[in-house]
């Protein structure tokens, strides 16, 4: 068997297996969705009639416009939140920087739909804030009125994507870029507009297009806010209420995929050939200066306002999970642990399902991710790049589209032995989560692999180890930090994934956390327990985020130690 393992065909077999998996659970379902969208529902012939019907219906026109409007406005609002925060941290010596970094993480640990209902109770027409405003000043602010609610919820959840990308871009600008402009007579707003902003633009566009597509694809938030006339919710509603033969769901899916691809393309264009990371030795980032007292006051003022908004879903959710009745009042009438105890009595299956699904999916992701990373970067297999491209292609597929694709493709595929259609078996949820999270896990694995010097592998082979042994005993252990970080991130995000899951949950007993929260939140009486479940979700994601941060930091420290040795080796060579 030794000689068998030595042959490169093992790698080829693994590659074929991975390709089959990606074909069956990514390429095929999406191809099916696109095909059905162009198919006459009655005759089966190829046609554009479905698209004509779509644009002929007022509801869909409205949905189309609403989705665009909400996504666009969310980008604007998220930008308005992110720009001052990015500016303060990169431009000033500001003690509040830690606060801003925290601000940039906190929203990410709660999926937007979880906080949506709580936001209504705080900021809605009859929510705490407006009750107080009305009592004190006699007016109210329609924070959560219609699409406003979607825009507010989405932008306070997704602005960190812009903040992180923009801050990184600003920090990567060589200080001399700014100084040379000053030296040539430029200053203030003109300098910012002509030099700083264009240099930070690619990073900003990358973040903004991500926010756009996240909002465009989200179904949980609008549905929980009772906004049905948007594209993604319509896709879900058509399929779940009319059935999987209704062509409108597929037409919308094609559009969602189209826009995802478009925004990925935009961000690719923005970044291409514009590697503006201009930092030279001598220090990056703009010149920082101390703030004057009045500037500091304004700065803290703005941060506090943003902080209040960013924390409002968390505050609302906490109140909701401990509150008795909360309606037409500033805070709940009383506080209780009843919601938590009812969760532990009746709803533990949501939690156990989630741990099971997310656990399997995240494990599968890092195994597949490691395999693809190794095949792509360490072998010369023909077509290996396509494995990478295909797996990354999942980025462009909204969860609801993947769900529809699975339903359509696997509804008549009977799984042997258990004799049930694959589309309604719980395993399909796990597969959906695996495919959805794979791009992130894959990037983590590739990053981890790139930190392992080929020399270390060659050294192992030089003393007689086979390829398989080398991978098992050298490569994977050295990648373990990165793989673990990938696992934890996949696990945490998979455990609150709603859009694909909601399409694929066929019975209550199979439902994971996200679907449970969504179900509970639909009814007024379920909000308390739903919020209690939501708190679990926040804790899982929060812990996961923290853990993956720790793992990455530890990996960095270890690598630094190794890097010093490597430098010395280079020096002596």
């Amino acid at each position, binding site marked *: 068997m030794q000689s068998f393992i030595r042959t490169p065909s093992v790698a080829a077999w693994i590659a074929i297996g991975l390709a089959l998996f990606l074909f069956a659970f990514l390429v095929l379902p999406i191809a099916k969705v696109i095909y059905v969208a162009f198919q006459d529902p009655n005759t089966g012939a190829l046609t554009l009639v479905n698209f004509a019907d779509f644009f002929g219906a007022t509801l869909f026109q409205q949905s189309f416009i609403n989705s665009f409007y909400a996504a666009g406005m969310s980008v604007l609002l998220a930008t308005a939140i992110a720009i001052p925060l990015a500016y303060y941290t990169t431009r000033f010596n500001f003690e509040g920087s830690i606060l801003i970094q925290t601000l940039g993480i906190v929203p990410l640990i709660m999926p937007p739909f979880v906080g949506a209902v709580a936001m209504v109770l705080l900021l809605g027409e009859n929510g705490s804030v407006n009750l107080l405003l009305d009592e004190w000043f006699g007016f109210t602010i329609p924070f959560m009125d219609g699409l406003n609610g979607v825009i507010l919820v989405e932008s306070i959840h997704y602005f960190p994507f812009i903040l992180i990308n923009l801050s990184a871009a600003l920090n990567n600008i*060589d200080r*001399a*870029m700014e*100084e*040379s*402009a*000053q*030296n*040539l*007579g*430029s*200053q203030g707003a*003109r300098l910012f507009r*002509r*030099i700083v902003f*264009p*240099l930070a*633009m690619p990073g900003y566009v990358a973040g903004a297009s991500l926010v756009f597509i996240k909002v465009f694809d989200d179904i949980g938030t609008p549905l929980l806010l009772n906004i049905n006339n948007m594209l993604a919710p319509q896709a879900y509603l058509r399929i779940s209420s009319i059935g999987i033969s209704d062509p409108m769901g597929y037409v919308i899916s094609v559009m969602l995929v189209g826009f995802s691809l478009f925004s990925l393309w935009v961000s690719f264009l923005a970044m291409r*050939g*514009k590697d*503006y990371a*201009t930092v*030279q030795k*001598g220090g990056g980032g703009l*010149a920082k200066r101390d703030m004057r007292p009045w500037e500091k006051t304004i700065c803290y003022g703005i941060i506090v306002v943003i902080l209040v908004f960013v924390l409002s879903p968390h505050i609302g959710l906490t109140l909701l999970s401990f509150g008795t009745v909360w309606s037409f009042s500033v805070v709940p009438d009383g506080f209780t642990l009843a919601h938590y105890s009812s969760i532990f009595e009746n709803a533990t299956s949501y939690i156990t399902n989630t741990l099971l699904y997310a656990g399997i999916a995240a494990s599968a992701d890092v195994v597949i991710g490691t395999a693809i990373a190794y095949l792509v970067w360490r072998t010369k297999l023909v077509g290996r790049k396509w494995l990478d491209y295909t797996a990354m292609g999942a980025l462009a597929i909204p969860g609801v589209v993947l769900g529809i694709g699975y339903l359509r493709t696997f509804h008549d595929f009977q799984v042997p032995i258990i004799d049930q259609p694959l589309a309604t078996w719980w395993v399909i949820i796990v597969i959906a989560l695996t495919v959805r999270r794979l791009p992130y896990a894959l990037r983590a694995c590739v990053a981890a692999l790139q930190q392992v010097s080929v020399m270390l592998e060659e050294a192992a082979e030089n003393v007689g180890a086979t390829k398989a042994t080398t991978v098992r005993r050298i490569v994977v252990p050295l990648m373990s930090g990165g793989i673990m970080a990938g696992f934890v991130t996949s696990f945490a995000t998979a455990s609150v994934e709603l859009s694909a899951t909601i399409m694929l949950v066929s019975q209550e007993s199979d439902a994971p956390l996200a679907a449970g929260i969504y179900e509970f939140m639909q009814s007024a009486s379920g909000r308390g327990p739903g919020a209690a479940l939501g708190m679990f979700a926040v804790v899982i994601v929060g812990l996961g985020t923290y853990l993956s941060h720790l793992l990455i930091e530890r990996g960095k420290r270890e690598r630094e130690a190794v890097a010093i040795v490597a430098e010395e080796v280079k020096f002596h060579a």
Partner: protein
Amino acid sequence: MPDETLAQPAPVEIRIENLSIAFDRTEVLKDIDLVIEPGEFFAFLGPSGSGKSTLLRAIAGFGPRPSGSIRIDGEDVAGLPPYQRNVGMVFQSYALWPHMTVRKNVAFGLEERRVPAAEIRRRVDEALDTVGLSDLAERRPSQLSGGQQQRVALARTIVIRPRVLLLDEPLSNLDANLRIQMRHEIHSLQRQLGLTTVFVTHDQEEANTMADRIAVLNDKILQQIGAPMALYDKPRNLFVAEFLGTTNAIPGAVVNGLFKADGGIEVPASNAPTDGKVLVFRPQNALVERADQASNGDVVRFEGHVSHMEFLGSIIRYTVEVGPHRVLVDEPHRTGIMPVGTGEKVLLRLDPAQTVVLAN
């Protein structure tokens, strides 16, 4: 042929008085006094951390606000923001803006000055022509070689007709061949423009070949100012002597107009400071003589023996042991002349006029 557009304003003087600079509470420059003459090509030379770049940046208006004054053409600019100084600076990294073409980069300063479009076009063309980059005006900086990038940076700076020109480590990002070429080009450009120009370098050869005068900086302090040859031949302290080239430094003391050191070394030093502690001379200013070929002259000789010989091509470097001291002696190598062998007893010959006695 006089060129109207490139005609720069009459060169101006830079006068730095009593200048100190501190980052937070760490002082990086202390009591700097120095006058750079109009039209002079001036170098700040020093090791890294000596404060030379900080001094250059202070002239341009970057870094912490200094105490003391920086006068350009008589005007104290120490409190002015960088964009009001009209002091052209070429950055070490060139700092070309990657999102603009070469033409846009060069035009930037003129646009900021609200110069009419037609004139901008003419002056940009002129500046690009001066640095020989007319063909590349529509390229992006990322499409240029390092040498071309530096020319763009130069064009971008001179096009605004700055009062003075500052160059931060102008040759450090170029490879060895290009470095020598740019050394000549920058030098001739400076002569052509007649601009008062200051550049920073840590390389004494660069400073020697390009500068009219050099200010040597070390450890926050201005060590010495002078023409390259003056600094080399008459260093004021041991740091300057060693930083500008290989030197012999023999510890001893001045007694009655004689510098005395162990091993029987006695060198007339009538002008030496009475607290002189070290005798300094360049290896090429000493000679080894075979013990039997002594000749007359106004020189001093000490007995020693050759302990080591290095062949460096154009010169032969001997290490001669005189008492406890090791003295380096460089002699030109000429084909057919046999060098003195290792272990041979020799006389070390020295002209007192070619030595310096230093107190520190």
